[in-house]
């Protein structure tokens, strides 16, 4: 009944009632425009904020009177999402079309200039593509290392053996350490003077061994450290899949005298495939964002600069804010394409099975 009366009332723009959201929007737009034009920025900021709150309040009252309780219940979550995620995302998208540096108070519209620059300028594009190729390389190496090691560990820990519980905790420790702690640990581990790695190899070969002095060594060092930290994560996921396989399937297979290789492909693998794919997705996205270990171990030296670290340097250190925004949109685009490609493939497989 109230719903009907409300629908009758809302079109009247001039009616001063709590749920007249159209009037609220009109008032908010006018007040905001006037305050932004006439008041100092520090004051107009709050006026605009209050106007936005007025519109939100009108919407809430309107929704309440119309008994849109579902919408009201999700509204706070959507509000937080908008304020914390969507607004900054759109703001940085806008910024990527301007020439703006955070430490200089000037701004100028350049259209697609930043994108053109990071993709075609012979200096900037060279850095971008180099970083992207390195990132792709790290994604392939770190993810495959983690998948293989994590999978093997999971197979091992799916069996019962003495001290299993304690060993499991030990294997999980690297994942719980802070990346910085691990990074510093590996810096010393690889150090040619103080590190144990060079110490052992030196005493065998007799020559000075320096792991991080070329690209192969530096990449191997970073991949090893990353795999050391994140293989346990893959293991946990796969292990969850392994223990969920019903025992009776194996018993039936044993009665049919099926080889363990076939048992794995026919029984185990279908159960863990979904989780393996999930681990692959998580680790691929994370590996795409790799920056912390690179900063700690090489500072991007020996051609190990990744796109994330490149972005940090452009946006945070060199204060080229809008160019950084353009790079992050390039990254976002790539992650979205990759993720959708992955989901498409995963879905097709599931349907085929």
């Amino acid at each position, binding site marked *: 009944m109230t719903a009907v009366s409300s629908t009758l009332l809302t079109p009247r723009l001039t009616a001063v009632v709590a749920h007249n959201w159209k009037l609220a929007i009109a008032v908010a737009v006018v007040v905001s425009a006037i305050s*932004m034009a006439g008041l100092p920025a*520090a004051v107009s900021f709050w006026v605009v904020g209050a106007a936005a709150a007025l519109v939100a309040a009108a919407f809430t009252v309107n929704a309440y009177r119309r008994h849109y309780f579902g919408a009201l219940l999700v509204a706070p979550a959507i509000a937080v999402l908008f304020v914390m995620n969507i607004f900054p995302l759109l703001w940085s998208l806008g910024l990527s079309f301007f020439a703006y540096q955070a*430490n200089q*108070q000037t701004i100028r519209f350049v259209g697609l200039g930043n994108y053109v620059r990071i993709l075609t300028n012979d200096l900037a594009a060279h850095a971008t593509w180099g970083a992207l190729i390195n990132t792709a390389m790290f994604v392939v190496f770190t993810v495959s290392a983690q998948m293989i090691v994590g999978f093997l560990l999971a197979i091992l820990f799916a069996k019962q053996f003495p001290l299993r519980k304690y060993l499991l905790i030990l294997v999980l420790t690297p994942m719980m350490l802070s990346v910085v702690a691990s990074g510093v640990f590996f810096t010393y581990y690889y*150090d040619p003077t103080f590190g144990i790695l060079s110490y052992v190899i030196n005493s065998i070969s007799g020559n*000075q061994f320096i792991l*991080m002095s070329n690209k192969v060594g530096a990449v191997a060092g970073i991949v090893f450290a990353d795999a050391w930290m994140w293989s346990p994560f893959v293991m946990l996921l796969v292990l969850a899949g392994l223990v969920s396989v019903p025992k009776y399937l194996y018993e039936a297979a044993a009665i049919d005298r099926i080889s363990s290789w076939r048992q794995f492909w026919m029984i185990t693998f279908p159960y863990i495939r979904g989780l393996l794919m999930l681990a692959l997705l998580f680790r691929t996205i994370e590996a795409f964002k790799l920056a912390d270990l690179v900063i700690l171990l090489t500072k*991007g030296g020996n051609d190990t600069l990744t796109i994330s670290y490149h972005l940090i340097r452009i946006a945070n*250190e060199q204060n080229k804010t809008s160019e950084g925004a353009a790079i992050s949109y390039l990254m976002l685009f790539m992650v979205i394409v990759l993720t959708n490609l992955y989901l498409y493939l995963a879905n097709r497989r599931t349907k085929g099975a």
Partner: protein
Amino acid sequence: MTAMTKVKGLATAASFAATLLVGGVTYASAEEVTLTMAVPDWPPTRIMKKFFDEQYKPKSGNTVKLDVDFIPWPDFYTRVNASLTSGEKKYNFIVSDSQWLGAFVEGGYFRKINDLIDADPELKAAMESMHPAVLNAYSTYPNSTPNYYGFPQFPDVLVTYGRKDVLCNDDEQAAFKAKYNEKLPCTGEEIDAMDWNTFEHVGEFFQRKKGDKLAGQVLDDDFYGIAYQAGKGYDFSTSSVHTFVWQHGGGIWDETKAPTGHAEGVVNSPKSIEGMEHFLKLLKYMPPVVKTGTMDIFVSDQLFREGKVAMNIDWIGLGEASLDPKTSKVADKLVFGLAPGLRGPDGKVNRTSQIGGQPFVLTTWTTPEQIKEAVGFVKWWLSPDIQHQFAAAGGQSAIKSVYSDPKYVTYRPWDRAWANSLDWQKDMWHVPQFFELLTQQQDQYDLAITGKQDAKTTLDNIAKFQEDLLKNAGLIQ
């Protein structure tokens, strides 16, 4: 209303909101004034805070609190930069690396202090008693003009750290003399007289393998002659390369027309290339970590303290740790001298060197009451008595009457090299694009240091980049 002013307005509004959110940090009652300060975490700033807590009594009668944020060196720039550009307006006082002046003055964050100096004869006298090299590098923007922004907090130069037990050993002395027909520098005076050739000889001479003898003792680990920063982070190779480029008569930019001169032909001039090649030649005598491009000032300092090298060139600011037996295996074997220079055909040594150290600067949002207290604090800090105490506790002073006092050289073993080093100190670019110049240059130097390209390619690449940057900034056609 243009898009530009709109964004500016919103940015200001956002920063205002941030200030309110941070709360009363910058607000204090008339009797109690809080000065919030961002400083790097190392002895010179720890000592300052300690002195302040123990001794400082403001003349105004107010209670002054110094709220100090100690930030680790490797993160220092990033943290300060983030704080300033985000507009949170948290700090009143910032210990700023000298090269940052341009970047943050242009952004409107650092306050010009000419009015404060002119209004206060005592402060003016203190600033005028400063060594001109230090004053120019730490205070002026554009460089060497009478526009002042900073008060020296901790002045610093590069000096040679040496190990007496190795350098003064009779067997080593004799073997060195036989091999190079010159004396192995052993005392402070001999190190002062050392040029790069001798330094290189020291490096070559002391390369020892595990099992070899060093000063009569069998080594249980490899030993190296020399160490000198050559790392990819921050300015950890720039400081050394600049020194060599300048000493060979090259340049890092066209100083006659800076910042509007061209980079091509200056940055990659034959003399600059010669200087860079000279630096690269020394690397093969340094500990193997140099080949990874991560031998920064902290790594070379640690190698020296662990007793792995005979000589290290490093900032005085890191010296305290090598004196302390708890952190240094060579604490009782130290000798200090000037950093080496390039001996010309006439026998004169050119020692032009990259200056270190930091000024503190005031930020533009500091209130008049805070400024009054800040000036009081700075005057106290630069007063001869406190400067003497600071030097005695391991700091340095750039005030003439303090460092020329005969007492000064007795405070710390490196102080004998301090006053003599000041005259030839020079700074890198103080321009808003400083960090772009620095990171690109560091990347290129790293490629040369790790043996991926030669000096000429390196400097050609840097010149090309700088030319492009200057064009984009509208400084050249």
